[in-house]
C-alpha cells in the first residue's frame, strides 16, 4: 500500500488520519500511519543525571561520547518509562542518583517524565522512584502518573512502546530461563494489558499456594484450601499459556523469516520454540516439544488447555507437597532456538546466536507494529559496532523507517556519512547532553 503511494507524487492529508495519493491517472486512499514518539524527556536524580531537560526529535538520534558518561543510562530511562522495568536485573532503588541518596533527606525522589506525541494528541508520562524514611529505615516505592494523575504502574504500559537492543542480548540465548521469561513478560506486557494483569494475579496465587505447601509440610493447612488455590492457579496459568503460545506462534514465524531471508541469505533456517511447562518433564525433552505442538494446536480451545494443566497439577501434587513449592506451571516456562535439530544455546556458535537474537528483536518490531498500528521506539546501545557490514545496513534500515530511534556510540565513525547527515547528533558528557562537545 505504501509502495503504491510512493509511486504517486501528490498527497493530501485528511484530518481524520487518512491520506489521498494521486497522479494524473489514478488515486489511492490510505490510512495515515499512526505514530507515537517522545518529544521531551525530563530526568531528575536518575542514574548520573541530576537534572536533565531534553527535547527529542523524530527520526534517529545518535548519542555519542566517551565511556561512562550516561549514554546507556538515557536509553534505560526511556525503556523504563515504556516498560516500568530496568533491562538490568537489579534493585530499582539503584536507579536513583547516588548524590541524592547521600543527602539522607526524609524523602528522596528520582523522577522520569516523558511527553509523548500520538495522533490522538499529547500525553505526559511520569514515574517516581521514591525512597522514604520510615522510622530508622528507608523504604522504596514507585508511583506512576499519566497526564499528572496517579495511575497503577501497570497502566503505564502501552502508553509508549520500545524495543531495546543491547550488546549483551546474546545472553538471552545462553543465559538462564528466568532471563528469557523476563524478556517474554516485558515484551508481552507492552502490548497486552490483560496478559499483564493475569501475570500479576498468577504470581500472587503462586506465592499463596507455595506458602500453603510449606505450611502443609509442617502439618498445618488443609487439602481443601490447597485445592482452591490449585484451581485458581490453573485458571490463571492456562490463560498465560494460551497468550504466550499465541505470541510465539506469531513471533516465531516472523523471526524465522527475517533470519532466513535477511540475515543469512537463505543459507540457514532456525526454529524458535516455546517450551511450556505444562507437564512434569525436563525442558528440551521431546515430551516438551510435543507439548508445545499440542498447545499450538489448541490455542483456540482454552478449556482443553485448562483441563490438561489441571490434570498435570494433580499428578505433581505429591511432589509439590514434598518440595514445598509448585513444580510446574508458566513460572517455569522457557523458550529456545533450534538449528538443524540442535539447540542453539548449547551448540550454536557465537555468531549464530547473535544472528538469532537479532532476528528475534527485529521480528519484535514488526510484531508490535502490526499488533498496535504504531511503530515502537527503537533503542540501540552500541550494537552497531558488533555487526558486519550487511547486518549493520539491515539494522539501520529498520532505524530509518522507525518513527523514532535513539542510538549510542563511543565512535561516530561506525556510521556512514549519509546516516550521520540524517541523524540528530547529541553529545553526552558526565550526565549532561548538548549538541556539541564542549571545548
Amino acid at each position: 500500500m505504501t509502495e503504491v503511494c510512493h509511486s504517486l507524487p501528490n498527497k493530501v492529508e485528511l484530518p481524520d488520519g487518512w491520506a489521498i495519493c494521486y497522479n494524473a491517472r489514478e488515486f489511492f486512499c490510505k490510512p495515515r500511519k499512526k505514530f507515537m514518539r517522545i518529544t521531551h524527556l525530563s530526568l531528575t536524580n536518575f542514574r548520573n543525571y541530576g537534572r536533565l531537560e531534553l527535547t527529542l526529535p523524530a527520526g534517529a538520534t545518535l548519542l555519542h561520547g566517551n565511556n561512562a558518561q550516561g549514554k546507556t543510562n538515557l536509553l534505560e530511562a526511556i525503556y523504563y518509562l515504556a516498560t516500568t522495568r530496568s533491562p538490568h536485573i537489579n534493585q530499582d532503588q539503584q536507579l536513583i542518583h547516588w548524590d541524592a541518596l547521600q543527602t539522607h533527606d526524609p524523602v528522596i525522589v528520582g523522577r522520569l517524565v516523558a511527553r509523548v506525541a500520538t495522533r490522538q494528541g499529547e500525553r505526559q508520562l511520569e514515574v517516581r522512584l521514591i525512597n522514604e524514611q520510615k522510622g530508622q529505615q528507608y523504604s522504596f516505592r514507585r508511583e506512576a502518573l499519566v497526564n499528572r494523575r496517579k495511575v497503577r504502574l501497570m497502566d503505564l504500559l502501552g502508553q509508549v512502546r520500545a524495543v531495546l537492543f543491547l550488546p549483551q542480548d546474546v545472553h538471552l540465548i545462553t543465559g538462564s530461563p528466568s532471563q528469557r521469561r523476563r524478556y517474554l513478560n516485558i515484551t508481552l506486557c507492552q502490548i497486552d494489558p490483560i496478559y499483564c494483569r493475569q501475570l500479576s494475579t498468577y504470581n500472587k496465587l503462586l506465592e499463596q499456594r507455595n506458602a500453603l505447601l510449606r505450611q502443609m509440610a509442617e502439618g498445618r493447612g488443609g487439602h481443601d484450601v490447597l485445592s482452591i488455590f490449585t484451581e485458581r492457579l490453573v485458571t490463571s496459568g492456562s490463560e498465560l499459556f494460551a497468550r504466550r503460545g499465541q505470541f510465539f506462534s506469531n513471533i516465531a514465524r516472523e523471526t524465522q523469516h527475517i533470519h532466513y531471508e535477511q540475515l543469512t541469505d537463505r543459507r540457514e533456517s532456525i526454529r524458535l520454540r516455546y517450551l511450556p511447562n505444562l507437564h512434569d518433564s525436563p525442558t528440551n525433552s521431546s515430551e516438551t516439544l510435543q507439548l508445545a505442538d499440542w498447545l499450538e494446536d489448541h490455542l483456540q480451545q482454552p478449556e482443553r488447555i485448562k483441563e490438561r494443566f489441571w490434570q498435570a497439577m494433580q499428578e505433581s501434587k505429591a511432589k509439590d507437597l514434598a518440595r514445598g513449592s509448585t513444580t510446574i506451571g508458566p513460572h517455569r516456562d522457557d523458550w529456545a532456538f533450534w538449528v538443524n535439530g540442535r539447540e542453539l544455546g548449547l551448540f550454536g556458535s557465537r555468531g549464530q546466536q547473535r544472528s538469532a537474537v537479532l532476528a528475534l528483536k527485529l521480528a519484535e518490531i514488526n510484531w508490535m507494529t502490526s499488533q498496535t498500528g504504531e511503530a515502537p521506539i527503537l533503542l540501540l546501545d552500541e550494537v552497531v559496532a558488533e555487526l558486519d557490514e550487511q547486518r549493520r545496513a539491515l539494522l539501520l534500515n529498520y532505524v530509518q523507517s522507525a518513527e523514532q530511534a535513539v542510538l549510542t556510540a563511543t565512535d561516530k565513525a561506525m556510521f556512514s556519512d549519509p546516516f550521520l547527515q540524517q541523524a540528530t547528533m547529541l553529545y553526552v558528557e558526565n550526565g549532561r547532553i548538548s549538541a556539541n562537545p564542549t571545548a
Partner: protein
Amino acid sequence: MAHNVLPQPVQRLIDEFARLPGIGPKSASRLTFFLLRGAENQALELASALQELQARTRFCSVCFNITEMDPCVVCEDSGRDPNLLCVVEEPLDLLAIERSRAFNGRYHVLHGAISPVEGVGPEDLRVAELVERVQGGTFREIILATNPTLEGESTALYLQRRLAGTKVKITRLARGLPIGGDLEYTDEITLSRALEGRQEFS
C-alpha cells in the same frame, strides 16, 4: 551522641500512636504534643474513650460483629429477613453495606480472609461458626460479600465448597466493584448496584 530529652510518658504515647496504621513518627509526635498542650479534659476524654472501647465492646455471639450488647442490634432486630445471610470479611464491610440500605437480612463477620502468606487459614476465621449457623438455620440464600481481592475471592470459593452440601442458594456480589479495592471504601451507589446484581455462585 544525642540523648532523648523527651520525658518517658511523652515518648511512650508517641510510640503508641506510631504503631497505629497510617500514622508515621511525625504525625505521632504532632498528636502527642497536641494533647499535651490542649485543654486538660481533652486528653482525659480520649483516655476514657479508649478504656470504654476495651471494656464495653465484644463480639456478637451470633454474627461476630462488634457490639455492646450480645446479641447485637442487627441480630435482635425482628424486622430483618431471616432467610438472607450476608457474609463479610470485617465489621467495617458490614457498616458499608448497612449504609447502602440495599440489604435487610442478617450478617456473618469472618474477621479476615484466607491468606496462607499471612498465615491465615479457615480455622483462624469464623468459618466453622458460619457452617454451623447455616446448617442449623433458616437461611435460603447466602450472599458471599468478601472483598474482590485475590484473598477475598479465594475465601468465597472456599466457602462455596464448604457450603455446597447444604440446600441453601449461594450468591456472590456482582462485579462492578473496583478490582483490588476494599468494600469499606466503596461508595453507596456502587455497593447497592453490586448487591442488586448478585448472581448464583457456581
